[in-house]
């Protein structure tokens, strides 16, 4: 069964303190792995798509990497405005469906 597990569930950082969020996945053929950011009361906001092991994507203070079993979201010198829940989701190749399987998310709090 396809599955996504994110860790840690919650993370508190001081402004400027870099860290990484983990997304472990099991899927029978990966079409794509997606990272989203979600603010309270809002829908998930797309950040990155990764398609194959070894791929990396960057945007401002965020960098996403992918291996065959997991993905990391590295946050460099975070600011308070980076506080949000970060969601990881995978889409498999089976069944020609766009179904995303989500993890439970990591809630990040960055203190000034």
């Amino acid at each position: 069964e396809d599955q996504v597990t994110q860790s840690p569930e919650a993370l508190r950082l001081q402004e400027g303190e870099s860290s990484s969020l983990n997304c472990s996945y099991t899927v029978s053929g990966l079409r794509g792995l997606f990272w989203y950011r979600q603010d309270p009361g809002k829908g998930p906001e797309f950040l990155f798509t990764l398609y194959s092991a070894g791929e990396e994507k960057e945007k401002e203070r965020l960098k996403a990497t992918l291996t065959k079993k997991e993905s990391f979201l590295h946050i460099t010198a975070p600011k308070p405005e980076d506080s949000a829940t970060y969601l990881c989701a995978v889409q498999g190749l089976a069944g020609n469906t766009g179904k995303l399987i989500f993890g439970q998310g990591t809630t990040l709090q960055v203190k000034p």
Partner: protein
Amino acid sequence: EAGVTQFPSHSVIEKGQTVTLRCDPISGHDNLYWYRRVMGKEIKFLLHFVKESKQDESGMPNNRFLAERTGGTYSTLKVQPAELEDSGVYFCASSQGLGQPQHFGDGTRLSIL
């Protein structure tokens, strides 16, 4: 470019009543998806439309849920009759194709009393 819009943003109804949620996808996106998040759980897939056709409805919980996408534009999700366990946030998303990013609306928060 307008994003995915959902209506209403909140709905409070009593058990046994009917509720209809609406989703307007990004213009030109043939693929439309419904998801929901119930309290304390992860976001879960409900179904996937390609234009007006149901590509995958494997996540629909039971036959009290009916999704339609008339003309391949906007979509509605009807719950009839609503049960307590249907409470949660219902999200709609759209994309240009498989493997492409899905863009989400802000959801409809549904409360069944």
